[in-house]
């Protein structure tokens, strides 16, 4: 210890001098007062992205990263925005709210990010929402489907937007399709199997609420709630077999849904009931399930044929050529967010000022491969994404895995969403 105290410190001296020079230069430019945009002219616009890159849902975060990188690459290759390129900076929060909040602050304060894409799941999204509110930082939430994030006025922030699905939209769509199917087949007795945490409970409740609204004779005869990431579903499968429902609803997702399907198939479960699974439609799930049953109704996530347009097909090809993970629902949402940001930046002339960007994003409509009629809009009244693909398909065993997409009209969704907002005191 002593030795190090008395050792020569020439190296450190040099560093100190360099640091001093850098500090002086920084102060100097500050005093001379170059306009901010001149200083920034050739520097990239940094976009900070906290997301989940480890653990059981890492695939979702990785597909978000791949989609963002691919969109940014396209924009930069076309010359960037007002001469500035985009540069995403990713952080792995492992989905933990406190980490996501800390990383968001760090991305703005230390990494110099001028824009935040909150690519977190719901739990951490609410934490990021408070951070960006506090820091007055422009932000787009790209993955949290929890309706209250933008529907509840308490959570609304003038400079924050949602660029992804919203639970209530899918609930209306799912309820309409399910009611149609059960009325046609004369089915009344429902069972549900969903993960036992906030999302699972809220999603299942919203879905069943709308099924009951559109098909009033519906009766839920059993509910089973496996915990999140439960490895074995045998007891839930046998509980369903014992109850003998006619229709099944599940919002299990990811690897949990894969395991449930493979285990349920051992008991021939899907030969016995009609089934609806809102999260089945994602590529990594569809490709992972080995005993893929035919005829299961699957919610819209991301699919190269939904919508069935050359633009969507081209996006899929471009993504697949540049990514090493399959595209997911999170992938298209993050790609769309980058497109919204690029469009807003064009409107502000490359200025990333929070209020200017907020003004440019509010009510913005862009051309997009993911939208109904080729457009997506971030609605002005509640800063949330609308006009994306909502509906249900039916599974088939082989590619393209899902067919017969039954699209829900947005006029229907708007109508029921407005009533739902009134009921919940959001409007």
């Amino acid at each position, binding site marked *: 210890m002593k030795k190090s105290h008395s050792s020569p410190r020439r190296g450190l001296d040099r560093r100190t001098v360099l640091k001093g020079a850098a500090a002086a230069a920084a102060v100097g430019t500050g005093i001379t007062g170059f306009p901010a945009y001149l200083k920034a002219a050739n520097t990239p616009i940094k976009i900070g992205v906290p997301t989940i*890159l*480890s*653990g*059981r849902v*890492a*695939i979702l*975060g*990785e597909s978000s990263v791949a989609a963002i990188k691919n969109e940014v690459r396209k924009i930069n290759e076309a010359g960037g925005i007002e001469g500035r390129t985009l540069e995403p900076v990713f952080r792995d929060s492992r989905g933990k709210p406190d980490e996501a909040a800390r990383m968001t602050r760090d991305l703005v304060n230390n990494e110099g990010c001028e824009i935040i894409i909150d690519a977190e799941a719901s739990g951490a999204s609410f934490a990021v929402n408070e951070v960006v509110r506090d820091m007055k930082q422009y932000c787009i939430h790209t993955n949290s489907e929890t309706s209250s994030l933008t529907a509840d006025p308490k959570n609304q922030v003038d400079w924050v937007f949602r660029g992804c699905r919203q639970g209530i939209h899918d609930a209306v769509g799912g309820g309409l399709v399910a009611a149609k199917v059960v009325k046609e087949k004369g089915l009344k007795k429902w069972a549900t199997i969903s993960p036992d945490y906030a999302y699972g409970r809220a999603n299942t409740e919203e879905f069943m609420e709308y099924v009951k609204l559109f098909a009033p004779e519906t009766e839920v005869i*059993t*509910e*089973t*709630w496996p*915990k999140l*990431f*439960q*490895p*074995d579903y*045998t*007891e*839930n*499968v*046998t*509980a369903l*077999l*014992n109850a003998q429902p006619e229709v099944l609803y599940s919002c299990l997702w*990811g*690897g*949990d849904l*894969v*395991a449930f399907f*493979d*285990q349920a*198939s*051992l*008991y*021939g479960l899907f030969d016995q009931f009609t089934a609806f699974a809102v999260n089945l439609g994602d590529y*990594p*799930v569809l490709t*992972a*399930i*080995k*005993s893929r049953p035919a005829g299961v109704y699957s919610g819209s996530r991301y699919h190269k044929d939904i919508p069935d347009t050359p633009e969507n097909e081209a996006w899929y090809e471009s993504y697949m050529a540049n990514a*090493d*993970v*399959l595209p997911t629902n999170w992938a298209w949402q993050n790609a769309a967010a980058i497109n919204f940001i690029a469009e807003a930046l064009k409107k502000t002339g490359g200025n990333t000022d929070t209020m200017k960007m907020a003004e440019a994003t509010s009510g913005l409509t862009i051309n997009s491969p993911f939208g109904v009629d080729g457009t997506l809009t971030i609605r002005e009244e509640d800063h949330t994404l609308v006009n994306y693909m909502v509906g249900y398909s039916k599974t088939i065993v082989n590619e393209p895995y899902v067919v017969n997409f039954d699209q829900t009209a947005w006029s229907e969704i708007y109508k029921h969403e407005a009533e739902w907002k009134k009921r919940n005191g959001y409007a």
Partner: protein
Amino acid sequence: MFDLDALASCLSASACLVNQATSGLIIGMLLFLVASGVTLIFGVLHVINFAHGSFYMVGAYLAYTTYVVTGNYFLAALVGGVGAGITGILFERLIISRVYGQNLLMQLLVCYAFILIVDDLVKIIWGAEYLAMGIPAEFRLPPLRFAGGFIPPFYLFLVGVAVAIGLGSVLLVTKTRFGKIVRAAALNAPMVSALGIRVNVYFALLFGFGCALAGVAGALAAPVRSLTPGMGLGILVESFIVTVIGGMGSIPGAFLAAIILGLTRSIGSVGFPLFVDGAMFMIMALVLIFRPTGLLGQGAVR
């Protein structure tokens, strides 16, 4: 919270009884394989292997790759077990043996670091996407019908293998020369060492065997459970509950506790679906209060 009507009607219907009893047995037997490794390692080495779930994961992934390459499920299960065993020996020799005798927190930290490293390595090698092996062709059969209930043939095989391995483990520890040396070394390692036996080698082999049990469980479960980096964590918590209820160090105890937990889960999903996990932890709490050494545990509680 309690649906006593459903429970009563289930207990009086043969179909429901068969379904729930077999599902309890299936859940219990895979838990038993993992927990018996934890309990074996603790019983002899007095170290709690918090990283045990990682070996379950390694076994599952190695089995997956072997199955994809060879198409032979039985070989895949073997490779899963042996691979996890070898990984276990390396982990014991290079990492955990360095913190034997140190405080629990240090061991916990070392294990946690290992879990994170292995999770990331798995992600690098196999990717972050969930993988599923699918039911091997031999077992793609319709479920057997027994007294109105359903029993998938694949699960009969799983339970059979788990029971055989459990019996084999007991015999290995109680009847073989290897078992005798290991048990003697657990009581007095310096004495056994003085007799010219390389105690460290035996400890490493035992540790590897415990990990191999987890690996086999992972491999056996791979056709029906999705493979993801981090999949070991869920099974780890439940296997610790089994170990605590059964008694640290007791393989028959782990067997009994695994069946109790399996049945709690399966009966609970009918009778008290909102309190299944609560019931498991309640049983553990009751055992800790009234019989702190566990149902069949004998040693002093550490």
